[in-house]
């Protein structure tokens, strides 16, 4: 049997490892991001949220992780595009009649479209908050005379979430995220070879209830809460 050389990233399965590792890392990121942003629901005029954002932009370890996070999103997107292109090439002549509804879920067949909606969302989302926070004109204030100048991102969020189109964008994008993760979370484990009759139901359950329902619902609740407040 001949030995085979070849880069991991050039093999079909290697590319799936990168897709799965980056996707599951992003799932972990979502949990942390959600936990932090839940401060928005505190009825304290934004104090807890602004202190949290100050921490997030000043801790060197968090800064490092956030840059790693941007790189991982980029990796996930580029790998996703490469895989989708490769897959399209594998069937140059399409079927006249296709009925895949009985053999696979809608989510699993539309990961690319769902991912693209998430990507568009991410660009707008980063422009509104990340860019404003770093390069915009965000007013500063002080809490408890601790000498720290806190940027008032809470007011920026409050203003953004007062616009109907912005709220709609959020809600639609969170639906896309929900369906992306309904398939994606369990798919990531399968790609890494983690498939065992004892744990499959658990993985599917966490993917469905935590990642496809709870997390997107809580994210979508934020703009709705501010809009209706």
């Amino acid at each position: 049997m001949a030995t085979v050389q070849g880069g991991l990233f050039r093999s079909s399965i290697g590319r799936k490892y990168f897709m799965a590792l980056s996707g599951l890392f992003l799932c972990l990121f979502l949990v942390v991001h959600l936990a932090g942003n839940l401060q928005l629901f505190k009825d304290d005029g934004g104090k807890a949220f602004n202190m949290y954002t100050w921490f997030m932009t000043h801790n060197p370890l968090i800064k490092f992780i956030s840059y790693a996070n941007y790189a991982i999103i980029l990796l996930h997107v580029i790998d996703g595009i490469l895989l989708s292109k490769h897959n399209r090439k594998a069937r140059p002549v399409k079927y006249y009649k296709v009925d895949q509804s009985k053999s696979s879920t809608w989510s699993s067949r539309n990961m690319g479209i769902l991912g693209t909606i998430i990507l568009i969302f991410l660009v707008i989302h980063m422009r509104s908050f990340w860019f404003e926070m770093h390069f915009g004109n965000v007013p500063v204030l002080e809490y408890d005379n601790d000498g720290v100048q806190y940027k008032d991102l809470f007011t920026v969020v409050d203003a953004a979430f007062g616009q109907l189109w912005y709220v709609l964008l959020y809600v639609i994008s969170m639906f896309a995220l929900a369906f992306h993760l309904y398939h994606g979370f369990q798919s990531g484990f399968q790609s890494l070879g983690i498939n065992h009759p004892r744990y499959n139901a658990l993985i599917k359950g966490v993917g469905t209830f935590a990642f496809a329902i709870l997390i997107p619902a809580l994210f979508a609740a934020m703009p709705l809460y501010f809009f209706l407040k």
Partner: protein
Amino acid sequence: MKINLKVWRQANTQSKGDFKDYTVNEVSEDMSFLEMFDVLNEELVRKGEEPVAFDHDCREGICGMCSMYINGRAHGPEQGTTTCQLHMRHFKDGETVVVEPWRAQAFPVLKDLVVDRSAFDRIIQSGGFISVNTGNAVDANSLPVPKHNAELSFDAAACIGCGACVAACKNASAMLFVSAKVSQLALLPQGQPERYNRVQAMVHQMDLEGFGNCTNTGACEAECPKEISISNIARMNRDFMVAKIAE
């Protein structure tokens, strides 16, 4: 019963095919789908027309030849069956049935509904075997195999190489086929010496043949006539990772 057919006709690999409509009268509901095609072909021959070329051999669901994409599904509407095991009672009188060849870059159409599946043979040639010097056959019970492994290996070995997984996959991926062949040997003691080389060689050949990637939709498992599980794909992914790390 009467069946209207919309069948893909293509003279050879180079020519541009097209659909042709036929009506087959006096179809018995006890006929298999292939027997219904036999009736059509006899009529075409009588009329001096070219019969529809399609692959078939055993007609009892064990050889894997009868590739037909029927009404948008590999081997038609029934689960766990090949086209030769599909009976006409699953169709309605007067129904229009669309029949296409497997569609994949790696499976070029040879004629009408016949596709070239030699890509699968080349994948097997790249590593789907064990290397032993022949001699006397050893006594079967001298090599202990845990029952659980024997069963999983046997399940994987049920793959008949029909290509329905490729046909059903939205990406025309051959992962279910390759993983069944990898697993079948990876689960047995005889497969161990070449285990990690094998998985790399077979995946490499699969990629060279131009099959698509796996999105884990599970369509392959759902349409497989032998109901091969995608847990085999997970096993292949695991073995491939171990092989790459050990390299």
